[in-house]
């Protein structure tokens, strides 16, 4: 919203603060200024619209002038001179639903001369970014910019019948707007209609048919109040925001409609000499319930602001903003909210805290440490666990990435067979980014191929949420990429899994996904619980190298975390070790052979370590293990060790394994 400095000077007595200083004061006390620009002999202060969202009154200069007068302790000059409009109205107004249109006021004028506005009026409008059109339209815009009351002038000759209807549109009705766009209307839209149909979209735009033209001699001047939420809905559905709709959607003051007509009446007499009223004021309204005064205990106010403020100062500030104050008990005020602040803005005592606070200046409140009991805050073990996982991964050489939560259908199809498992976005930023990720893999895959252009090898990971319709599951996904053909990436990731959860194992999967290498894919298990997946990307997925991925469900991983360690007394007797080399098939599993050895070794087995393997001429493999055995109460004799070894060898042979001895 643009404010003309000269205009504000008309409305604030003896305003001599410079425009720049004024902009600063407004920023600190009222709303954020975005800068000051010169405009001819005027200065324009631009105020951020977002900071005016809750202040319908500040969408006109008079409202801002009231703030300025209060800030500087000057007198406010009301531009509206009360006027009398005696006699019967020459236009009838019927309102279908006062909830949608609390008030509709109108005047009819004849002997109108349509011509360009005088220079001063045009300059004012141009300064605040409104285009001068002709004297009649310009007056309506002037009133809008001055007292935030949107108005509309109809060419009375183009209206059918002597009655104006404020009603919802009927299905199939259309209107040609002043902007030459045509709008299809439906019963959710409020319109102004004459005997023939809609002539304006209520609170948004007038129709082309009844627009003021050079031949206009008689006008109906509308000054109405419309329901904020209804205007906002219609405006956003029609994708049409206007200077009027922006104001109405902030909830304007119904009291203002007649003030608008009074102001316009004075201006029209100046810019259209000879103009005459036809009949009196049409004013259809449902009396508004007057807002009950707000009880403001001053002690409570002091507690909220954290500083004592003298009662007299509170009273002075409220009065300067035209709030009424009555003392109902010592240090308890009853505060009457002016109509222009009562539509949405001020209704509870907390709202008054802001009025007092901003006017005394928040910089007058010294910071104070709160007196609260020392408490240990509730723990967040999940987040702590995620942090440990992050630290571990980074320490092991992995760099953290963040990927978007959105995926395209095309990418989603690569990683899942069922697109309906994805939540869909109704209004995606790019048409194809319309699904939420159910896995971190699409992002990691992209990271791999993007970075492969710059690096021969790299490691990266992400912690993020897989989003399913019924739950959000935190996942950890890490990838190792290398341009060479070595399968070390899988081993490295398996080690990372062991670092994150000691005791995990990997079990090769028979059934794999199309994006997985069919012979280099397995489940990551803790006991019998599947906590994730370890796989190499199918070679077709990665160009010019190999990439392996570890994908862990962090909730399961955390739940699987090992129980706290229990101490076992140190061994007092020496242990004995021997190696065994088992001849196994080409696809035999090291873990399976080891499990068989463990079972045969029995209770005396202290540890078993896989040493090495080598390929045999017949295509099989020799797998070597070191077994360490011992007894808790004595040193095993050479005979006893030999007996255990023979038992294992016999057992292995019985199980179909040959041994290299």
């Amino acid at each position, binding site marked *: 919203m643009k404010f003309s400095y000269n205009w504000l000077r008309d409305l604030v007595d003896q305003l001599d603060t410079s425009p720049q200083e004024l902009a600063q004061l407004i920023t600190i006390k009222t709303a954020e200024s975005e800068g000051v620009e010169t405009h001819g002999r005027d200065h324009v202060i631009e105020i951020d619209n977002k900071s005016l969202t809750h202040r319908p009154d500040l969408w006109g200069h008079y409202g801002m002038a009231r703030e300025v007068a209060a800030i500087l302790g000057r007198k406010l000059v009301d531009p509206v001179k009360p006027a009398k409009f005696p006699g019967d109205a020459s236009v009838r107004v019927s309102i279908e639903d006062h909830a949608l249109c609390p008030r509709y006021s109108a005047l009819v004028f004849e002997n109108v001369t349509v011509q360009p506005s005088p220079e001063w009026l045009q300059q004012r409008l141009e300064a605040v970014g409104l285009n001068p059109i002709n004297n009649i339209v310009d007056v309506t815009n002037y009133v809008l910019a001055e007292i935030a009351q949107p108005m509309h002038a109809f060419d009375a000759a183009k209206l059918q019948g002597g009655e104006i209807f404020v009603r919802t549109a009927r299905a199939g009705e259309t209107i040609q707007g002043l902007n030459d766009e045509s709008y299809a209307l439906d019963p959710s839209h409020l319109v102004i209609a004459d005997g023939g149909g809609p002539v304006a979209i209520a609170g948004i735009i007038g129709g082309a048919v009844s627009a003021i033209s050079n031949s206009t001699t008689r006008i109906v001047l509308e000054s109405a109040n419309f329901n904020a939420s209804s205007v906002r809905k219609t405006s956003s559905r029609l994708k049409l925001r206007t200077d009027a709709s922006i104001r109405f959607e902030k909830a304007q003051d119904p009291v203002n409609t007649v003030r608008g007509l009074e102001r316009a009446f004075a201006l029209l007499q100046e810019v259209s000499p000879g103009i005459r009223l036809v009949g009196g004021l049409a004013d259809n309204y449902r009396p508004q319930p007057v807002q009950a005064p707000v009880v403001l205990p001053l002690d409570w106010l002091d507690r909220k602001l954290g500083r004592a403020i003298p009662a007299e100062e509170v009273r002075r500030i409220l009065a300067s903003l035209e709030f009424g104050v009555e003392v109902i008990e010592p240090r308890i005020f009853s505060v009457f909210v002016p109509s222009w602040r009562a539509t949405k803005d001020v209704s509870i005592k907390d709202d008054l805290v802001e009025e007092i606070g901003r006017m005394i200046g928040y910089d007058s409140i010294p*910071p104070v440490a709160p007196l609260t009991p020392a408490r240990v805050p509730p723990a967040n073990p999940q987040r702590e666990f995620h942090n440990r996982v992050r630290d571990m991964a980074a320490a092991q050489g992995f760099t953290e990435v963040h990927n978007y939560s959105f995926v395209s259908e095309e990418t989603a199809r690569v990683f899942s067979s069922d697109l309906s498992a994805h939540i869909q976005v109704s209004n995606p930023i790019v048409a194809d980014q319309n699904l939420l990720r159910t896995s971190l893999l699409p992002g990691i895959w992209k990271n791999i191929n993007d970075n492969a252009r710059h690096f021969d090898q790299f490691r990266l990971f992400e912690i993020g949420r897989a989003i399913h319709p019924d739950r959000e599951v935190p996942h950890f996904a890490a990838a190792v990429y290398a341009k060479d053909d070595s399968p070390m990436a899988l081993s490295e990731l398996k080690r990372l899994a062991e670092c994150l959860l000691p005791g995990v194992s990997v079990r090769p999967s028979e059934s794999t996904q199309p994006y997985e290498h069919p012979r280099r894919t397995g489940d990551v298990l803790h006991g019998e619980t599947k906590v994730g997946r370890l796989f190499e990307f199918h070679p077709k997925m990665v160009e010019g190298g190999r990439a392996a991925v570890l994908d862990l469900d962090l909730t399961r991983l955390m739940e699987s975390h090992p129980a706290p360690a229990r101490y076992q007394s140190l061994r007092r007797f020496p242990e004995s070790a021997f190696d065994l080399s088992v001849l196994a098939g080409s696809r035999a599993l090291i873990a399976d052979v080891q499990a068989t050895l463990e079972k045969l070794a029995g209770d005396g087995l202290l540890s078993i370590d896989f040493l090495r393997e080598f390929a045999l001429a017949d295509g099989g493999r020799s797998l070597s293990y070191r077994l360490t055995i011992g007894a808790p109460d004595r040193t095993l004799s050479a005979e006893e060790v030999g007996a255990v070894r023979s038992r294992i060898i016999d057992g292995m042979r019985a199980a179909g394994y040959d041994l290299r001895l």
Partner: protein
Amino acid sequence: MDISELHASALAALDRASTLEELEAIRVEALGRKGKLAEISKTFGKLAPEERARAGKLLNTVKQDLETRLDARKDALASVVQNARLESEWIDLTAPASGVRPGSLHPITQVQRELEELFVSLGFAIMDGPEVETEYYNFDALNIPADHPARDAQDTFWLKDGRLLRTHTSPVQLRALEKFGPPLKMIAPGRVFRNEEVDASHEHTFYQLEGMMVDRDVSVAHLLYFMKTLLSAIFHRDVTVRLRPGFFPFVEPGFELDIQCLICGGKGCPVCKHSGWVELLPCGLVNPAVLRYGGVDPEQWGGFAFGLGLTRLAMMRYGIDDIRLFASGDLRFLNQF
């Protein structure tokens, strides 16, 4: 050869010896069981008793002297050998270390962790909430009813199932109040979404940190104290803050918090657009309507809340000029942190 001659010749041989083997040969020749000293001692029987005692004493002295010198010489030679070996074992310590270089945490993670630690030290709990939110938690319960113009400021990703992607971390205020009730000091860092066109300074996905304190008496003075303490810790220097009116439906009164520009110290520079102040975060006293939605009686309790842009803070901290880099997954960028 008498004892003195033997002594002299053995010492001369010792001086000449350059290997442990030569030393051993000298030892055997002079001190061995069949060595020269032993041979000489055999002749002592023929000597007169006092002569024998004198010769025996001399022999012992020479023997001890030779043994001591042999040991010393042996040690010297051994250390020469050892030194030669050590010398040959030189390693270039400037060679790169083996193994994998450490990775790094995402810059936003680093900033977030620093703040989390700071808040935990001030007694705040860290809370989480879902990224897919309901309209109730994201808007209604935060005092932003349908058709409230404030919804315009937060372009929302709506989901086909009627829910939405949270536009701020503020819904966690409600979830935390529901779960723990007052008194409560909490923060909620996390990912938020706005349906915005992406460019160097706008992202549809970014990170915020929500904070709230609810207690019996919470005032603007307390809010100022916390913000000043917190921001001084974040920026590692004493910062000057100011509050000015700002409108956010879930707080009343609502503020924009500015800090005095850290670049120019408030004198005015391009970073602060010559105003001396940089807008940093929205905050305010928790709106009583929000407390009521959270099941808290606003007559008994009050609170303050604030929202910190973690992404923006990371940009300030590291001087990052393109917000899109954060989600680029580009290791040329991420490896710098």
